[in-house]
């Protein structure tokens, strides 16, 4: 293999390299997925464009709307430990802390995880629940903000164009009364990918479900939005029966494949179980 390696110092230079080399270029962030894909022969780039020299690419800051902006190159560990994130969205820190092992979290970046679009990854599921926006920049210096769930179109597939880059991920300011939760079910060991994971956000003010966003990981080609569950609970009083009935609908909101983490039928059932657990946790109820 004959690979040319580039370390652009600015986003503009990175875009220019991607424009010049098109499909022959691969972006390198933390390098965990990159190394695995390369060694399995799933990518064969002629040009590798590493983003690590770009100033500010890993910064975690307040954004203009009172939310948090996470630079694409922030590692999972940096997100997990950020005071800004543990103050505003400790549930995101919790979700990120469930990724693999400390070694992977020290190396893998949040932007890399989103761009890689593995539907069983933890961070994308929780970021979907929290209504995160992805700031995508283009070669002509323009940028677009994409609701994160619209970025994912299929397994390992996003709407990102070949010369586009994720610059940051923005999480809205925490609304008063918001409750959020992330639950991950692993079959074999705690560092495994999820069999099923659930990220949820709701406003439970007045004892009624409002603004529920519920996404599941590991049970479809992208983080799967449980729209029937959301609809069933909209405006409903928070109680155990309503939660159990709504969670049963999660079975048909997902589209799992049979694999080493369970049969499709098993995963549908686990989607129900873990949706119920996540909703009960949101409401401060014990598991069941």
């Amino acid at each position, binding site marked *: 293999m004959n690979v040319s*390696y580039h370390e652009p110092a600015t986003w503009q230079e990175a875009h220019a390299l991607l424009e010049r080399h098109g499909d022959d270029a691969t972006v*390198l962030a933390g390098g965990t997925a990159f190394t695995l894909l390369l060694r399995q022969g799933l990518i064969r780039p002629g040009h590798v464009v590493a983003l690590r020299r770009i100033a500010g690419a890993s910064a975690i800051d307040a954004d203009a709307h009172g939310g948090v902006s996470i630079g694409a190159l922030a590692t999972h560990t940096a997100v997990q430990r950020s005071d800004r994130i543990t103050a505003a969205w400790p549930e995101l820190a919790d979700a990120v802390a469930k990724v693999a092992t400390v070694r992977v979290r020290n190396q893998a970046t949040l932007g890399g995880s989103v761009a890689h679009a593995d539907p069983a990854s933890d961070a994308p599921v929780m970021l979907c629940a929290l209504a995160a926006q992805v700031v995508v920049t283009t070669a002509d210096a323009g940028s677009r903000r994409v609701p994160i769930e619209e970025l994912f179109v299929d397994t390992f597939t996003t709407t990102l164009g070949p010369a586009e880059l994720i610059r940051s991920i923005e999480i809205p300011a925490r609304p008063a009364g918001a409750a959020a939760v992330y639950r991950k079910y692993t079959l074999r060991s705690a560092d495994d990918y999820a069999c099923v994971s659930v990220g949820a956000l709701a406003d439970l003010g007045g004892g009624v479900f409002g603004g529920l966003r519920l996404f599941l990981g590991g049970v479809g080609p992208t983080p799967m939005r449980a729209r029937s569950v959301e609809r069933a609970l909209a405006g409903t009083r928070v109680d155990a029966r309503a939660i159990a009935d709504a969670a049963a609908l999660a079975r048909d909101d997902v589209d799992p494949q049979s694999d080493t983490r369970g049969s499709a039928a098993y995963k549908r059932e686990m989607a129900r179980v873990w949706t119920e657990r996540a909703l009960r946790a949101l409401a401060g109820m014990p598991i069941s």
Partner: protein
Amino acid sequence: MSTAARLRVNGAEREASVSPEIRLIDVLRDQLGLTGTKEGCSVGVCGACSVLMDGALVSSCLVPSVLATGAEVTTIEGLSGQTLTPLQEAFITEGGFQCGICTPGQIVAASALLAERPRPTESEIREFMMGNLCRCTGYQGIVRAIMKAAP
């Protein structure tokens, strides 16, 4: 194509040939002769290849060597001088290893833990060390060794 680069490994400047497809573990073992770092699963799961980059624990089998330039890399060889560290001593006295293949990774990982949290609880040890697999000890000796080495 690979390019010549300078790496800081165990406090010394070393010349190495790096590229996106040469992994840090290949540089350490094959180019620099630092064979204390072991290759186990090759997919970042087992922890045998654990090293520190700027103090952060990583799997050297997942790090493209190009990303190690500019960083301070510490391997098992860089942790002790002529004598063993208290942590290494504790692995011996507490039965923290048997066959030894995972031991360099265990020691490097435990060093990272103790640097970050000098007095970890047993559950913090189990949580942090979860990704360093051992097929001999049943882990009890490893946990005891780390508890003992914590001042």
